[in-house]
């Protein structure tokens, strides 16, 4: 179920990039895309009824139904990267605004 939600988010993000003409909105769409992706990654590791993948004194056996911990680790990295990109994007958006006086791609004088 979570996968579907993630895919819907990815699609939304792509839709946003395709249709929005505003620089900020495109960055937001990009973020939605990334969030959808991250959600998707996490959902891959999800096991129905699984436990947190931590060995404690209660569950020190090998046949426990852990969720996959690796996607969560990946998501952490991906989020960090996503934040970095977003920050950079916003910084560039600011320069664009400074240069063109608008956020709308269609109103900028360049080809």
């Amino acid at each position, binding site marked *: 179920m979570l996968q579907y939600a993630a895919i819907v988010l990815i699609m939304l993000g792509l839709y946003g990039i395709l249709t929005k003409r505003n*620089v900020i909105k495109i960055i937001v769409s*990009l973020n939605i*895309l990334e969030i959808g*992706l991250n959600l998707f*990654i996490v959902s*891959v590791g999800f096991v129905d009824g699984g436990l947190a993948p931590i060995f404690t004194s209660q569950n020190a056996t090998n046949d426990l139904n852990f969720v996959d911990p690796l996607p969560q680790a990946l998501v952490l*990295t*991906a989020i960090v990267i996503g934040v970095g*990109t977003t920050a950079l*994007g916003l910084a560039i958006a600011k320069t664009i605004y400074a240069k063109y006086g608008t956020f709308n791609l269609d109103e900028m004088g360049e080809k």
Partner: protein
Amino acid sequence: MSAILLIVIPLLAAFLSILVKKYSANILLVVSFASVVLLNYIPLEVITIGGFAAPYGINLILDQYSLIALYAVNVLFFLVVAINCAKFKKLSSILLVALAGLNGMILTGDLFNLFVFMEVSGIAAYLMTTTNQKPLATFNYLVQGTVGSSLYLLGLILLYAMFGTLNMQDMAFQISSSGYHIAVTAFPFLLMFIGFGVEAKLLPFNSWVQGILGSSNRLTGPMIASVYAAAIGFVLGRLLTELFVFEGTLLLIVTAILGFSIVAGEAMAFGAKKVREILLFSSIAQAALVALVFLSGFTGLAALLLIANTAGKLILFLITNTATDQLGNDDISTLQGLFVNNKVVGVSFTVAVLNVLGLPMFFGFVLKMNILLEFFQTDHLLWPAVILIVSVVEGIYFIRLLLKLWFKESDLPQVEFEFTLKYVVVVVAALLILFGVYTAPVEQAADDLTAIQYIEGGNL
């Protein structure tokens, strides 16, 4: 000595250079030179990080393929930096991060790690391109790059979901032994291919190229067109030969993309009126050609072709962008007669062009002949025909460009080329001629690189 130093040292130096801003340029120069030197002392090996064995942990693979890739990337990087470091002091730490990212991309044997390095070097590249003073183009590049890497990540995760591994070798082994229907892996493979396609300038995914390279300066032009192209090309080559299994519709799509990139790239360059546009469109075609050769399985030749092309592009972009920076724009009419007073630079430029065209006595000729020979030996008659027809078009616009740059009666453009630049382009040009005439090591290298594919446990 360990290959990990190639990543660690630049990264450390990057942080260091923020602290000591005054010496950042020197640090950059020293580090980039050091990594070239370092390459000579690193043994070929597979490095596991953190003590986890290969399928579970991240490993770095330093085999002959990545060694030659590292040599190419580091040398080119050093050359670009050596010419530019004084002028772009502010970018020192970013360049260092970029170096770390590029080296990491080439070295890593882990697909997710590759994504990370790709993003690191990508962000460095976005930052670099802000110096073009075209924020819109940079923004465009950023959005497309991010979408591309997201797609790569999506494909990667799908594969992980199917096979439960992120290690390249292991993944390849799992796929080949699992006996899945090919259609199952096709979708993630395509996503990953597209993700790389964005960075590797393959045609439908590369609308950022015009904005970035078309208005590039002396640093970003050679850096994106040459250094980044080399690194991405090598990594794409590794993925294409080791991981991706393209069959059926997917193969059709991919070959169609590549073929279309080659043809359309040359056609666009043919119609272009600005020097940098000519160069960037031709580099689109060449990137696709390299990918095609990788796809056809002629790994060694593809690698060498990549080196020849990126070395050539280094010269071309360095010279063009230097002239453009001084003259204000890069219309052919502005640059016409550029070499009348700059013969040394002109000869190097000419050598680079003839090398790209694959005319005899130059490195490109040897490679082109060998590639065609390989195609013929595998009974592919279509691709040689396409390559040859496209070469005619390529020849026409490059020769036209060369003649414009060499001949003008009066009102010559005044451009100063400093000594380091001259030195660099002459050395690179001389190497292109050397390997064009003395072909034994080239063919040896091509054979070696092709022979080491598909060896379990890291291709040592």
